[in-house]
């Protein structure tokens, strides 16, 4: 290494790591400088809007604070209260799990199924694709308003069920059915997943299908042996984003049920919102937010672990 005496040690190491090709160190440093310059929007946002607030949030969660009077340090009391005293917290957490663990897989199954159909040579493919994606384009507020009608005890959904001799429930008014009602609403938007899935299906090399065809595989076999493995990364991606998103469900609950009846549709984020902005329990609300984070983190880790057994990576991402 003595031949590079005039180079800064850091740049030297960087150069070595980058494959050993030696270039002038100033160029390396310039590149690094531009890297940090270019990512600065993200970096500033990360520090200012995420890291800083996160640290503040940890602190607030250890206090009792109404934002008007000075915060009072209470240690872990807020966490203890959520976990041991507040029955609504557990109910909301259970409801959120119920909602997320049904709506996300259901949405994915419907999404994959529809994407597979849309990936065929269908006449009017563009039109079908649009129809199926359309619900995703309706802003949640509008969706919620329409579903207030759709889910009325004598609304169109129950009319439809009536054709099959099913006596539909009172959906939003019934504690047993209010969560399924929210899941119905989310299933209506299942077409959203088809975008990424279709674009992934688009990119599957045709030769793979040709090979399968030669082996005598029918469409079902071709789906399971070619299409599915190839799109598992996107399915996994949708699964993770879907889980994270569904654990944060808010607008639908806020507009359609306000958490009722009897908190049967109370979810973590509306609960947190109520604690913060109706009761001024900023400390408690922050603690609930961190508990939510821990739940999401744990689930994500579980999902990653589980993904090793079924997600197929053709080439590893750097």
């Amino acid at each position, binding site marked *: 290494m003595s031949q590079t005496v005039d180079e800064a040690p850091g740049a030297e190491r960087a150069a070595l790591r980058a494959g050993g090709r030696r270039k002038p160190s100033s160029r390396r440093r310039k590149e690094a400088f531009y890297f940090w310059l270019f990512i600065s929007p993200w970096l500033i946002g990360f520090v200012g809007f995420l890291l800083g607030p996160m640290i503040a949030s940890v602190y607030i969660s250890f206090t009792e604070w109404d934002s008007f009077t000075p915060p009072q340090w209470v240690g872990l009391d807020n966490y203890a209260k959520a976990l041991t005293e507040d029955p609504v917290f557990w109910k909301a957490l259970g409801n959120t799990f119920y909602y997320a663990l049904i709506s996300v897989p259901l949405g994915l199954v419907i999404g994959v199924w529809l994407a597979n159909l849309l990936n065929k040579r269908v006449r009017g493919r563009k039109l079908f694709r649009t129809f199926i994606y359309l619900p995703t384009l309706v*802003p949640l507020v509008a969706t919620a308003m329409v579903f207030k009608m759709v889910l009325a005890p004598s609304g169109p959904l129950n009319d439809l069920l009536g054709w099959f001799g099913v006596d539909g429930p009172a959906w939003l008014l019934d504690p047993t059915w209010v969560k399924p009602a929210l899941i119905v609403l989310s299933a209506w938007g299942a077409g959203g997943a088809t975008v990424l899935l279709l674009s992934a299906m688009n990119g599957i090399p045709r030769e793979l299908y040709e090979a399968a065809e030669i082996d005598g595989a029918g469409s079902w076999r071709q789906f399971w042996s070619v299409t599915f493995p190839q799109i598992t990364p996107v399915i996994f991606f949708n699964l993770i984003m879907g889980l994270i998103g569904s654990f944060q469900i808010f607008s639908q609950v806020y507009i359609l049920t306000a958490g009722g009846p009897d908190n049967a549709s109370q979810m973590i984020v509306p609960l947190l919102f109520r604690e913060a902005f109706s009761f001024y329990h900023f400390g408690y609300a922050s603690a609930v937010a961190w508990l939510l984070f821990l739940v999401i983190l744990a689930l994500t880790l579980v999902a990653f672990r589980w993904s090793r057994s079924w997600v197929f990576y053709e080439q590893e991402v750097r």
Partner: protein
Amino acid sequence: MTAAAAKPRTGPGRTRLLSAFKASPATYAVLLVVSAIFFVPFVLMVSISLSSDLTSSQNAFTVIPSEFEWRNFTEVFTATGLPVGRFVLNSVLIATLSAVGQVLSSSLVGYAFARLRAPGKGVMFIIVLATMMIPAQITMIPQFLLFKELGWVNTYLPLIIPNFFTNAFNVFLVRQFVSRISGELDEAAQMDGLGYFGVYRRIILPMMWPILTAIAIFTLTHAWGDFMGPLIYLNSEESMPLALGLQYMTGTSNEMQLPPWNLVMVGSIILTLPMIAIYYLGQKYLYEMNLQGGSAGVK
């Protein structure tokens, strides 16, 4: 240039259709039924929006439109006692500026992560990915207090400005997209003396349009329909976007009357149509984001 991401969809020989792509009558049947089910709420929305005040006040709606009160579409701007025109304008402003912010910042950051080498880059990228998992609610309260200190409450700034600092998901999308563009072009350009910003602006940016359009669509859709942000930050009627204004419309009718559902649904349609238009114009890019197997994994 825009076609850079297109893949050949049919084989060279135009041989017989592979089974995986054969559409059977059952395929059509399923697609028709699903489309119909997915479409019913729209029809209901349109039907209600075209019903008369009387039908609306009695809640005597039909799924198939039976009345055609087109004047509801002008009345919504005049007869609700709310500045609905202003709501629309606010939505446009917030959504457009948010999208501009995301496109500018994510393209720059994503490019840097895909192309530039620097010590610490790997760690940074792991941080980017990790932040995707953090629920916004954790930062909601401190952010609220931060914006309060900045005097931004009841302005659009809390809704718009964070977009100029991009988000992890979009950085990830751009980075994946740029990684797939061959590096020969920018190397050649660098030989010609183009700096890093020059490469970004002249070489990479022009090729990024598919992914940037997709990001613009995502951001527009999200900002246009966002409810919680405006609910927290916007206080005066004049500043509200349509998504929040619509909800106001259902809440401020007189005690003895139902909300003007017909006008609310007109509002919903106004809220929905631009999204459909944007999707229609941008769908080509959406389906060509090219996140095929292998490269889209969250690793």
